[in-house]
Each structure stands twice: as C-alpha cells, then as structure tokens.
C-alpha cells in the first residue's frame, strides 16, 4: 500500500514536471523576451544600487558580489512568481481539479517551479555574462562543491517556499502587489546586496534572516566572502530546508481542507 501510494505521488510529480517543461517551451516568445530583457535589467540594477557610491564601479570584489547578488535575485524573483501563479490556477479552475484528484498544492506548484528553474538558469547565465562583460566582474567560483550544494538547497527551499507563499496570498485581492513588495524586501534579507559593503553591525543583522543562509550561501561560495563559518552556514541552511518541508506540507494540507470546506477553490 505504501509502495502504491509513493508510486501515485511520483506519477503526480512527474506529470507536473512534464507540464512545466511543456509550458515553458511552448511559448518561444518568453525565451526571446528573457534573452533581450535580462542584460538591460542587469545594467539597470547594478547602476541603481551603486548610484550613491559610484566609486564601487572600480571595485572588482564589490562588483563580483553584486553580480552574484543579482543572480540570486533572479532566482528568488522567479520562485515568488511561481507562488503567485496559484492565483491563475484558482481563476482558471485548475485548483478544483487539484482538490478532486487529492493532490498536494506543493506538488501542483512543482510544474511552475520547474519553469522557474529554467527561467533562473537561462536569465542567471545571461546576467553573469553581462555583468562580467560590461562591469568586469569575475566569473571564477571560489568553492565549486559548496556552490552547487547551496544551489540545490536553494532550489529545494524556494520550490517549497513558493507553495507556502502561495497559500498565504491565495485569498488576497491583489496578491501581485505583495509579490512585488516581497521582491524588494528579499534582496535585503538574503544578502543579494553584498553585506560586506555595509558596516559590520549592519551586516550582522542578516544573520537573523533564514533567507541569508539559503541565498547568501550561494554568493559566499562563489565569492569566498563569508559572514560566518561556511560549515555552520551549510548546516543551518539544511536545517532551514527541513523545517520548510514540514511547514509547506502542513500549510498545503490546511489550504486544501479550508478550500474543500468553504468551496472557495475557484473564483466563480
């Protein structure tokens, strides 16, 4: 019975992943749009951040940290919009089907998360190349194994975070506003804006943010600049990811229960 159940869950997961891949590649115009937009957004973000301290444009270390900061910004932004996509699922009546097939919301959002993975990597690579070409940031990765480990942890964390976030905004009237605001708050909480540019007392505030251990770890592994010991950082990031597995599962079940009870799974 347990085997049968896990086979069912596995089948649902692969279906969602397949859906995400098909959706992403169905509209080539999206890919083209990303390829054109990303270099411009990178230049815009770089220059907007250093507007008050333009001398940083000559500091390769700061520029390299900023480049990786923009990379994780793209990653987080993509998953926030994956969470926001629950609204379309509700509007289009897809959530009705999700409830009827007894599927977890986290699994349902996997399809959209896969799109976010593609999106993050294509845009992320374009961002890295643009920053390196225009601003002279270094593309060398300081600790490659830790970099890939932290990237995998971040992908798992943000896929689950997307489902927690989706559950929190699903009943809001204008959830995209929250998503946009979150997009501006997360860079501050995650180390996307290089903490070493700030006085130590200000930078240390980041140590209280769980997002720093997930996203900031990618930047640290790439640049070799750490606020705390890398092993401790890695352990904390794994613990945070395990915690979000439970939170995501709990919230997802609660959401399905409340939608089933109140019959509010679709807009009409």
């Amino acid at each position, binding site marked *: 019975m347990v085997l049968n159940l896990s086979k069912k869950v596995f089948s649902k997961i692969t279906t969602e992943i397949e859906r995400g891949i098909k959706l992403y590649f169905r509209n080539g115009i999206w890919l083209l749009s990303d390829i054109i*937009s990303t270099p*411009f*957004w990178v230049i815009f973000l770089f*220059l*907007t951040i250093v507007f*008050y*301290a333009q001398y940083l*444009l000559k500091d390769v270390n700061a520029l390299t940290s900023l480049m990786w900061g923009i990379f994780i910004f793209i990653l987080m932004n993509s998953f926030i919009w994956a969470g926001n996509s629950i609204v379309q699922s509700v509007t289009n009546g897809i959530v009705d089907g999700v409830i009827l097939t007894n599927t977890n919301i986290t699994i349902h959002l996997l399809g959209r998360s896969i799109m976010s993975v593609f999106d993050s990597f294509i845009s992320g690579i374009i961002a890295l190349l643009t920053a390196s070409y225009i601003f002279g940031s270094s593309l060398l990765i300081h600790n490659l194994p830790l970099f890939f480990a932290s990237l995998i942890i971040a992908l798992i964390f943000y896929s689950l975070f997307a489902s927690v976030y989706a559950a929190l905004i699903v009943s809001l009237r204008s959830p995209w506003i929250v998503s*946009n605001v979150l997009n*501006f708050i997360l860079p501050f909480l995650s180390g996307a804006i290089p903490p070493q540019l700030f006085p130590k007392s200000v930078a240390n505030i980041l140590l209280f943010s769980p997002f720093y251990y997930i996203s900031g770890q990618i930047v640290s592994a790439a640049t070799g600049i750490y606020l705390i010991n890398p092993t401790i950082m890695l352990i904390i990031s794994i613990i945070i990811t395990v915690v979000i597995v439970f939170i995501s599962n709990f919230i997802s079940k609660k959401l399905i229960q409340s939608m089933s009870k109140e019959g509010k799974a679709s807009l009409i």
Partner: protein
Amino acid sequence: MKKEFNQLLAILEVEIKNLLRERGTVGFAIFFPILISLSTYGVGTGILGKAPNIDLWFYQLIGFTILMIAIIMSSSSAWYVRQGLLSRRLEYLFAASINPLIIVAASSITSGLMGIGIFLVVGLIGVLVVYGISNLLNFFLATIILAVSLIPILGINLIVAATTIIGKEPEAISQPLSAIVSTTSGLAYPITILPFILQIIGEVMPYYYAAEYVRAMINGYLNLVNLESFPFLFIYLIGGYFIYRYFEYNFIRKEGNYGA
C-alpha cells in the same frame, strides 16, 4: 470626426471606470517609486556610512515615478489586447464600425491619465520633502510638461498593442521595452555613466526627455532652448500610427490574428 470623438469619449469613460475599480493597482503604483527610492537611499546611507544628499533621492524618486508610468502605459496596452483576445472582445471590436485605433488610443490615454495622477501624488510628496512649498508652482508646470511628453509615448503603445495581437503574450512583449527604457532613459541614474551605445538608445527615446524636462522644470532651469528636441519626439506618434496600420493590414486582419 464628431462620431470618432464620441466613440473615444465613450470608451474612455468605460476604461476610467474600470481603472477606478483597480484600487490596488493604483495604490501600488504610488507606493512603488517611494519604496524603491527609499530602499536605494537606505543602501546608499549604509554604504557611505552617512545620509547622502537628499537631492539625489529626489532625482531617483522622479525617475522611478516616470518608470512606473512607462511600465503602466506599455503593459496596459498589451494586457488590454490579451484580455480582448481571451474574452473574444477583440473579434467584435475589429468587426465593429469603430476604428481599432480609437480603442487603443482610449486605453493609452486612460493609463496616461493614471500616470499623471501618480506623478501628482508622488511628485508632490517629493517636492514638499525636499524643497518645501517654494517649488510648488514649478512642480505643477512640470506636470503639464509631463502630460505633453507622454503624447509621443502613445505611438510606442500602438506598436506594443499591434505586436501583442500577433505575439499573444503581453508580458513577453512589454518586458523588453520596460527593460530598455529603465536602463537607458536616465531614470535612476544619469545616462552619462552608461556605455556609449546605450546612451544613444536613451537619447532617441521619449522617456529620457520626459524625465529631463520634468526635473529641469521643478528645479526652475527649463527654457525654450532645452525643448528644441521635443518636436522630433512626435515622430514616435506618427511612426507608431503607421507601424500599427502596417501590422493591422498585413498580419492582424489578413490572418485573422485577433482571435483567441
């Protein structure tokens, strides 16, 4: 002509009512330039270890407000088309005895009016914080300058609308435009720090002039010499009209591209 004008007014009325229902969007559009300009000011304070000159905050506040207006104007045209495609409204509009140009113009004028409203609220806050009441008259004149500067942008909206009918994905169409405008138009930083080719792109687009004219007017140093390139921007309106017409005849109507 009277018939067309009445049609424009009728659609404008519907669009404005529609806009008034979208309080969240309007609220966010006002909140966004303030939030992002304060965020970068905070980052600047953190990096420098002291508060930067408040004039720099005002520079970015005005720039981000115009950026918000540019994004709203291009996105609204694209989304209008998208919703029209999904609801099949566009099929009826193309078949009706109404010029599609009037519909696109009405949608763009509505978002332009919303943009001016946003500018009035955000700009007023900025002017009062930085200059007190001394520059208020300049600010209101700057609002008029902005309203006129937005007219050439309607031409770009026409192109966005036409390409959305063909490309179908509103965000995928408006996103590159927003990215290019944000980066090259001197909204968040002076274009002099950009690579040369991007400076040229910025200088041929109307958004750069909208931001420059508005800032100059508020600071009281705008004169007629500054405005010499302004008439040339109307090429966008004329060019947008012809490009729209070209797309309409050769792709949209011919291939029946206005269906879902």
